[in-house]
């Protein structure tokens, strides 16, 4: 019951936050000089004043700011995210077409970073001053420090251009035909490089944290007890210590989920991954306010859901939390 109440309160906060995000961004977009009519005319190679005026009146851009804002918020409250000025399509449709691709990329990259990060963290925690440990630390920090687009292009040059292992861009090869598995393998081949690129940023965080908590846990009394019981090193680490060292990592992963989504913008752009990131980038360039706000709305939703899932995951690994709200 208490759990339900806290969840409801959190959902209420989330809605307040969403409205705040929308109002703030709408206002910010409005403050900047110029508008989508300019980018539409750019995409057409120029337009005369008459046409610009007509585009503005068609989309209600000639209305006072508060009227525009009011209309937009009223629409959102009726679950209508509006109509994209630039793409002439309902924003919801535009986003729904892109959302699966982003989710696929973000979730797989997050899982890869998490599992690999924890694994590497544990390995290096077992021999904190060993060569492996230093190597893991170096690689992780390198991935963290290198700009995403640079890592992406380097991977492309190595694995696509020279080795021909993976395709360059997009999510599928439209020239192939076949059953489900053919397409599954095709999407997987397209997914691997962007996934690694995106995961590389977060790998460092998770492996460093996993290493630190693991070292702490390995020094604790119950581990010593387990060891003195005669359990093997492997059993001690993976059965007893790992579970206890996981919760900080999972908490961090939940917090980082929004960062993963923003990281996806760059990765998607480099790999032409047909997700929300590329759409966000193009919409911002085009000043397509309804689309940008729609994407922010959906990203916020995804982050909130991600955080809820984190909570659940934490309760699963840590029995102490289960009784609490």
């Amino acid at each position: 019951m208490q759990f339900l109440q806290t969840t409801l309160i959190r959902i209420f906060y989330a809605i307040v936050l969403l409205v705040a995000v929308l109002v703030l961004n709408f206002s910010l977009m409005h403050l900047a000089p110029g508008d989508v009519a300019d980018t539409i005319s750019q995409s057409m190679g120029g337009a005369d004043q008459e046409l610009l005026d007509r585009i503005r009146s068609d989309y209600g851009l000639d209305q006072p700011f508060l009227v525009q804002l009011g209309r937009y918020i009223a629409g959102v409250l009726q679950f209508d995210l509006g109509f994209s000025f630039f793409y002439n399509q309902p924003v919801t449709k535009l986003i729904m077409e892109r959302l699966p691709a982003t989710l696929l990329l973000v979730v797989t990259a997050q899982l890869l970073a998490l599992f690999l990060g924890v694994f590497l963290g544990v390995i290096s925690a077992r021999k904190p001053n060993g060569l492996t440990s230093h190597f893991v630390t170096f690689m992780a920090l390198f991935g963290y420090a290198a700009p995403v687009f640079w890592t992406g292009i380097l991977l492309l040059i190595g694995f696509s251009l020279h080795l021909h292992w993976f395709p360059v861009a997009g999510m599928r090869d439209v020239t192939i035909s076949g059953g489900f598995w053919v397409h599954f393998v095709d999407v997987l081949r397209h997914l691997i490089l962007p996934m690694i690129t995106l995961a590389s940023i977060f790998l460092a965080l998770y492996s460093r944290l996993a290493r630190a908590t693991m070292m702490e846990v390995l020094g604790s009394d119950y581990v010593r007890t387990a060891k003195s019981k005669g359990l093997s090193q492997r059993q001690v680490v993976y059965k007893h210590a790992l579970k206890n060292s996981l919760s900080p990592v999972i908490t961090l992963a939940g917090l980082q989920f929004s960062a993963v989504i923003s990281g996806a913008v760059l990765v998607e752009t480099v790999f032409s991954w047909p997700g929300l990131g590329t759409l966000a980038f193009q919409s911002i360039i085009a000043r397509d306010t309804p689309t940008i706000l729609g994407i922010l709305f959906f990203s916020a939703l995804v982050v909130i859901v991600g955080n809820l899932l984190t909570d659940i995951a934490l309760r699963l690994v840590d029995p102490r939390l289960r009784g609490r709200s």
Partner: protein
Amino acid sequence: MKQFLKGTFTAAAALSVLATGVIAEDTPKQGGTLVTVLSTNVRNLNSAVQSGIVTGYPGAQLFASPLRYDEDWTPQPYLAESWNVSDDGLTVTLNLAKNAKFHDGVALTSKDVAFSVDVIKANHPFKSMFAPVESVETPDDHTAVLKLSKPHPALMLAMSGQLMSIIPQHIYGDVPIDEVKTHPRNNENTVGSGPFKLVEYKSGEHVILERFDDFFIEGRPYLDKVVMRIISDPAARAIAYENGEVHMGAFESLPRIINRLKKVDGLTVTSEGYGGIGPLDWLAMNTTKGPLADVRVRKAIAHAVDKNFIRNALMQGTTDESRTGIHPDSPFYNADVEAYELDLDKANALLDEAGFPMNGGTRFALTIDFGWPGVKPQVEYVKAALKKVGIDVTVRASADFPTWAKRMGTMDFDMSWDTVFNWGDPVIGVHRTYNSENIAKGVWSNTQGYSNSRVDELMAMAAVENDMAKRTALYAEFQQIIADELPVYHVNTLPYHTVYSDKVGNPPLGIWGTSTPIDMTYLKD
């Protein structure tokens, strides 16, 4: 004798090229999927209501236009099997192909032509294309007669490529004319009469087209399928060309990438095919305020900015010089104008003469704007170059295109780097920059505030002159005056390049490049 024979063969070959407009290397092969690339998402597939280079390529495959142009700027029959311009220039008769059909099987008639002209006039940004067209008469299904209020030679180019897409009235006629631009069939289930029909457009991913079997030209197109992948990152596109994942792409404009791809075996990189669109880079100057109002100051700036440095160092040799507002590939281009070679002494003398003496290393201050990050090097160079003659330049960045467009459209600037396209006939894309009636009417209007009654007069005369020689002479004088008065210092053409693999036969390199039907393009084995 051998020499003579060789000469004859060359002449015969040249003739056959002229006749077909195609260099027949080997016989075109039927079939295959051509994978090409688009650099950004398509806003709208319906080229009757959406101009621009992104829509041009898919638009020209989906929709046919009355005429087409090859490399030599001579109109060729397309939807119009023949045409006739009356002696007074006021009536243009199009005889349409009798077997032309839309992709849904409905016959294309002169009614569709009349409808399309109405739609274009109401929605297309280039009003000057059909402004003189008062009505389109349809005496029978296969004859469309355009009645003009005045002679309009620009109509020929305006009836070709992506500029006059014939769209089906039975599909787009269900909404008021000026709402066609938001018609749901613009992006979905789009139906035209071009060589390829739409299979799927997935935003951010691809446009897929397949062969239209009932295309009105027998035996064409050669390709079974055309895939247009949307890859926005230029480096990723370059790798895709090198990899062979993509056969062809146009509008590549990064000098570094162009030069790299030129060295790759199996790829051809060419700047052919951009004369129609006619993209030009220039330094725009606001002639209405401050020191720039004095033509001597503008000339001094032109003499102080070294075009060769921009072309050779910044653009790494990928662009051509353009001395006037008309693209060098255009038959109207006049290279015989003042070229403003680098001459700092002359620049200093002109500035002294204009009454701006050097005062502690500086004469006066100006600002320079730029609309997109790609031209920042040019802008930084102008700043450095003008410092040498005592002009202190501040670079003003814009957050994005609309910010810059606003500044330009309201003439809130001193100098700006600008990129403007000719769009075929000078009437369509050139006049707008110099016409005194078009001052400060949004971005890419006469944002320089330039006004010269002789220039206005020359443009007005050239717009209605059907005699090519006379028209060329009018534009020659026009270009001389512009080069002399410098509302704009013309620097170079845009480094647009088309990249295609050796597997591609007959790539589209006519004046409209990829914005033309690729019904003659084929894939080799």
